[in-house]
């Protein structure tokens, strides 16, 4: 078995056709003016020229999913009595996420610590995660707003990817990171890639150097942010232009918060888990109408704090931001989280 592989550009579609016969393959496609992940099928045109607007997180953590169905059954003997039945569905389909960026894959690593590496692992995420192979494409240019190298990552950072590909002039150089990745490389379509290894490495370094560096280091930042917790003036200033929508969180590859709600029609219904955002007023609103984060600056503070302070404090210094820049790029008001962190460092 080869350590690395090479696939001529014209064979990419053949590979995806072959893979999609065995499992479901998600690829980035252009729709309207946005790139998002859709099921691969014949005739689908890939868009690999820029990172997707919407990261592939929804494939492992759907925007909404049924946790279980419930069913009240009337007792035919005594209609006043009913019994209740719950049904969960934990069968998941083997999946490939193809053509996400390294930052997208790292998003799942942020999830893993919370959803898997705990005594109460999330069976839905776990089920999908285990059956999913992630093939990422390294970046060949930074996108507006991205800053991955400042959060300890990079345009070719392999953490989270099973197989990583780098665009070369005539094809793609593939490097496996895990057994799942090696499995894919076994396909006879792949040529030996060893000749391209150095070239790919050089390309990675070149792009790395181009990525914006809003701050030099994050050492001490988690503590610094905590020390600013009560500084309302700072946070009100940073949040003044924020409109408290959920664009930043829903486009974020690392944001993993959710809501649980019940829906019922007649005697049946389901418990649904859906994306939720700490930027929304109702997120922490209690039944008593008390809200610990009733102002938008408190909510923005939580978002920044979670990524750059609470999570790293809990998980060995790992920053819960992959630097993909989507929250900056697509923010209606151009709120810049990297700028906020930089301001906090200097405050």
């Amino acid at each position, binding site marked *: 078995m080869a350590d690395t592989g090479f696939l001529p550009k014209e064979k990419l579609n053949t590979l995806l056709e072959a893979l999609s016969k065995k499992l479901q393959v998600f690829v980035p496609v252009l729709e309207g003016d946005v790139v998002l992940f859709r099921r691969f099928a014949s005739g689908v045109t890939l868009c690999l020229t820029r990172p997707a607007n919407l990261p592939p997180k929804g494939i492992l953590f*759907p925007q*909404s*999913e*049924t946790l279980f169905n419930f069913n009240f059954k009337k007792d035919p003997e005594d209609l006043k009595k009913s019994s209740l039945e719950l049904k969960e569905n934990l069968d998941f389909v083997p999946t490939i996420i193809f053509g996400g960026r390294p930052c997208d894959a790292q998003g799942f690593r942020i999830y893993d610590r919370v959803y898997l590496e705990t005594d109460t692992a999330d069976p839905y995420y776990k089920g999908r995660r285990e059956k999913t192979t992630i093939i990422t494409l390294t970046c060949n240019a930074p996108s507006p707003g991205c800053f991955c190298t400042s959060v300890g990552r990079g345009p070719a950072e392999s953490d989270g990817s099973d197989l990583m590909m780098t665009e070369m002039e005539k094809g793609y150089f593939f490097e496996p990171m895990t057994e799942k990745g090696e499995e894919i490389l076994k396909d006879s379509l792949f040529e030996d890639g060893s000749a391209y290894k150095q070239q790919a490495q050089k390309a990675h370094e070149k792009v790395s150097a181009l990525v914006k560096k809003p701050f030099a280091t994050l050492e001490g930042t988690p503590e610094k942010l905590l020390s600013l917790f009560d500084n309302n003036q700072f946070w009100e200033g940073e949040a003044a232009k924020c409109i408290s929508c959920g664009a930043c969180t829903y486009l974020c590859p690392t944001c993993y918060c959710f809501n649980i709600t019940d829906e019922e029609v007649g005697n049946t219904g*389901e418990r*649904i888990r859906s994306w939720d955002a700490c930027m929304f007023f109702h997120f922490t609103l209690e039944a008593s109408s008390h809200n610990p984060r009733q102002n938008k600056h408190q909510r923005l503070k939580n978002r920044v704090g979670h990524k750059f302070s609470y999570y790293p404090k809990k998980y060995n210094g790992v920053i819960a931001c992959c630097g993909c820049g989507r929250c900056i790029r697509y923010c209606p008001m151009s709120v810049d989280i990297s700028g906020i962190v930089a301001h906090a460092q200097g405050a």
Partner: protein
Amino acid sequence: MSYVAGKELRIVGFLCNWCSYGGADTAGVGRFKQPTDLRIIRVPCSGRVNPLFVVKALLNGADGVLVSGCHPRDCHYSDGNFYARRRLEMLKRLLPFLGIDERRFHYTWVSASEGARWKNVVTDFTKAIHNLGPLHHKEEKTE
């Protein structure tokens, strides 16, 4: 069974308490033969009908929606139906823009004494909806 041949369709009717609901009652008392596809929701006044009621019904399984209130100038609350008329007219124009046939939504005025008129409204609207057929809803998954 529907009065109109074929499978019964789902039609929702929002009827004002003072006129149209009475009109439907009069039609019933008069033993007029009427199709049974209509499910009536009694509202205090046609002015109570939020256009979103109609949208919600059409998006969630209704094949047609009928709103009926007191004739203009006859509103129990003097002007509820005047407001309704403006709102519902706006809605009637918006629906086809979204790809929903405007004939699936009808608003009209029926007084409490107009049992025969009510019968005609229901019959004609039901026929119209049957001509259009069911408003197809694709099976949707949450994922």
